[in-house]
């Protein structure tokens, strides 16, 4: 389980790619992947290789959104498999994130 962070060429969007179980064990790594970023950055969380997502992962996504500017943040969740998408829907995350 890892988080790979890649900054886009224009330097305006950061892609966080989560691999393996996305649960509380990842909290430190996930946070470290963005906490030193300057404000105003857009984010994409790539969940295509996330095999599982729990409620603490939802909490981590919310903390990322807050870091990126709260209601003005641009955070996109992409590559969601059906099971992951369902969990995001139950949590009403489509109101807070752009889910691709």
């Amino acid at each position, binding site marked *: 389980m890892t988080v790979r962070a890649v900054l886009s060429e224009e330097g305006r969007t950061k892609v966080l790619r989560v691999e393996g179980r996305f649960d509380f064990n990842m909290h430190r790594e996930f946070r470290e992947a963005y906490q030193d970023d300057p404000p105003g950055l857009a984010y994409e969380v790539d969940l295509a290789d996330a095999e599982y997502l729990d409620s603490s992962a939802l909490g981590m996504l919310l903390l990322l959104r807050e870091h990126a500017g709260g209601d003005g943040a641009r955070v996109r969740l992409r590559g969601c498999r059906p099971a992951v998408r*369902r969990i995001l829907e139950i949590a009403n995350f489509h109101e807070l994130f752009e889910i691709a």
Partner: protein
Amino acid sequence: MPGYPRLVHAAPYERQAPCPGGLQVLIADDDPTSRAVLRALVERHGCTALCAADGQEAVERFLSEEVDLVLLDVHMPRLDGYEAARRIKEAAGERLVPVLFLTALTGERELVRCVEAGGDDFLTKPFSPTLVEAKIRALLRLRDLYETVRRQRNDLDYYQQRMEQEQAMAQAIFGALVSGACLEVPGVRRWLRPSARLCGDVALACPTPDGQLHVLVGDFTGHGLMAAVGTVPLAETFSSLTRAGAPLERVLEELNRRLHRLLPTGLFCAAAALEVDPRYRVVRIWNGGLPDLLLWRPGGVLERAPSQGLPLGIQPPQRFRAAFRTVAAEGGLRVLVHTDGLSEAEGPDGSLYGEERLARAAADGADPFQAVLEDLQRFLGPTAEASDDMTLVEVDPAISWQDRCGCCPKRPAREAAEGWTLTLELAAGALRQADDPVGVLLAGLERLQPLEEEHREPLRTVLAELYANALEHGVLGLDSAWKRDPEGFARYYEERGRRLRALTAGWVRLRCRFEPRPGGGRLVALVEDSGPGFEHAQVPASGSGQLAHGRGIALVQGLCRSLRYLDQGNRAEAVYEW
């Protein structure tokens, strides 16, 4: 001045007043002069006079008219006064129609004959009008008093009859409500003798979906209607929870909670409960306020299971704890339960039957149930009346009830055979070391019941969230409110690791029960922990909002058919269906 006063409450409905002006007085005398004098006297006071010249005529007029008072000469042709009085009294039946004899005789014997013939008083001729008038008044007063008493007695009879009718109806209704549990279960013998129509003793048996048997014997304080009222919620709760698969401690907790809420102080239910588990061949016993249960084994070996807790309905729910005793259901064990109405039954000489005599009778012979009943019958004698409800129940755990209980809705045998329960218990050491206990459990589940891809992930989420809550909040005592900000979030999980590494006590139990359904199945996940629980009444219906914590429950609710917290909140039960 009106005539003789009439008491207003003198049963007016029994007599159609034939003379609205007053009462009817029958005058029987063969002497026309006497008749005329008496008629004038009676009519002066607003009464109607009916005259007869002899006894025969007097009886005939009495039979054809409504007569309130009879003045009767002793010596008359055709029928004398004595015989006329006798016939008139006989015809009057229950009604008091005073008879006043008028006689020229003064001998004691004649006067005694007057009274013996049914006369209420007598007057000697020649009589004074004043005296006649006074006697008439006195007799009418007596008659009114008698009528009042008779009417009150009739009212009482009426109320008594009505109460009996109502009780019979209540008995039928109570019977129907209480029989929600199974009445005839093989292996359970019951003998119940109510002291009144409605009974405050109750004996219930009901199988659980897991193939155990729950038995409950209860004795409400008092007897009759007051005691019977509580049996309805008791029976209803017992059978519905047992059928839903609740373990016996949970059933007892709920019974206590309901009775505590419903019953006024002073009304409660002493009870004993048994859970027979044929797979492990054990009987779990709880006794809250009943006389010692007798554990009988062939050869007269008796053990006692005394009361170890308070009766149901006394303690507030948060203080109620059911302590069980577990007994091996082997060696021909039978469990005898009785209520104190039986051990305190009174014999003809006023002595009590007593628990010692009961135990001796049970030990004596091969059939303790029958032995006790026969001995009790000998003790009570043939005509004994019960002063309290009496119950004797025998449970023979070796007899299989599962295929033969006629009361329960039959479940297809194949389905019961395919269901299973998988339990994973983690004590402190295992909690410290377990890498992914939910993964282990899921792997086990899948070995027993292959899961479609679309259900594997949701089930993992459900189990993982419930496990995380049990471990983090229940065992480790972490407060999820810390996760409100990034620093707290990190601190929460660091603290989680620190506390888990130092953990020496506590446990989490994950129990999954699978029941096949047409084309799918149902998984009931029960996750329990050793923690103190929490105020689960405050769990929000769904976790929306933007807080970084408190989403686990909402996720489980969203994925499951139902989620509920039991007891103090340290048991969560989620039902997942597909």
